[in-house]
């Protein structure tokens, strides 16, 4: 959906469907990272995603980077080959050229938790 301008008084512009699509993509991306099939997005629990992040990315991921360089560069932490393989699960219309340059488990936990909650809200607001 393109950007839109209110035409008449009282018209509402919020689109739950567009927000839902966005956060499903965000959550799918996290699911791919931890090896979960995004097609299971409707049945997976946040507990499983969070535990997956905790197991894939040790909390001290940065310690390795610090040992290499006190200032981490922008290279990818997640091996690109693994990410590309995970892409086979689903097509990403907006993320085709996307690269992940995660620096911390903490960051990914926040992405997952926020995508989870906003997806939930968007579904509710869409009446789903």
């Amino acid at each position, binding site marked *: *959906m*393109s*950007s*839109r*301008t*209110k035409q008449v*008084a*009282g018209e*509402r*512009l*919020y*689109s*739950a469907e*567009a*927000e839902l*699509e*966005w956060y499903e993509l*965000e959550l799918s*991306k*996290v699911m791919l*990272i931890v090896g979960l099939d995004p097609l299971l997005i409707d049945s997976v629990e*946040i*507990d499983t995603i*969070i535990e997956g992040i905790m197991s894939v990315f040790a909390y001290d991921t*940065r310690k390795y980077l610090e040992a290499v360089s006190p*200032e*981490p560069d922008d290279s990818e932490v997640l091996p690109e080959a693994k990410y590309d393989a995970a892409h086979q699960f689903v097509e990403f219309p*907006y993320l085709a050229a*996307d*690269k*992940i*340059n*995660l*620096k*911390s488990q*903490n*960051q*990914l*936990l*926040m*992405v997952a*938790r*926020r995508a*989870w*909650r*906003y997806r*939930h*809200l*968007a579904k*509710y*607001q869409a009446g789903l």
Partner: protein
Amino acid sequence: MSDEIFGNSWAEKASVAQRLSRTGTEGFFYAESEGNQDYFQQVIAHHLRANIDKRAIATGDDFEFARYEVFENPQDSWAEMLYLAAASIHIWEELVKPLPSEAGTRVPLEVLTHDEVPLDKRTQSMVDGTCNYTFLNETDLFRLEEFYFNAEYCEKFGDIPYSAIDFQDILAGEADGRFDLVKLNCRHVISTNTKMLGKYMDSLKCGGIIVINEMSGVTKLYDDGLRVHQSLYYDAARYVASREDFITYHIPYQLGLIVARRIA
């Protein structure tokens, strides 16, 4: 709780700053608008109906939704702190938009933003022709339309013009070069990479300003200079500072504020 996080001196500074400011309204944030209290109550009720998962594993230490309960009934020094958080964002718009007396003779300010908390001053800018607002299509906009614009309280403003845009369209480049001012919250820079943040910056015209608030992780960014790069928001802040087409200032007030201007 606020004193434990920010320290007494922060609350005192916020209180003094509020007394020494002249914002053109009596309270700017709370006292100006009895509608705001109704708004917060309705948002909280909405969250209850939606049955948001509030377990620790689903929320971590995220303040995202708990903030509305604080907004509804701010105690101790929260009111002053929330005032300062809102003012630190709103000030940039006040400084660069046309004066109300110039409406119709100067081009309105094009603003891309979200809206966690309705501000009557912002609504006034939307109706007096000094700003054209485009809201990100997210739950913030749902709340704004459902519980604020739609409220009897807002009838005094008449028709409130604004636009909306989807995240997907910003990422696709549809907003590139369109805005004079982009106002975001730390939430919008949390991602697996800096691609979306880059597109927010691309959406500015040359000369435009991006303001990103709450970038300190509630002071954590400033707690230990040697480990600053471990902060949740460090990568995003570093990305903004790395853009050669912007001049960037990181302002280390407790909540953390980034202000950057596009120069090329």
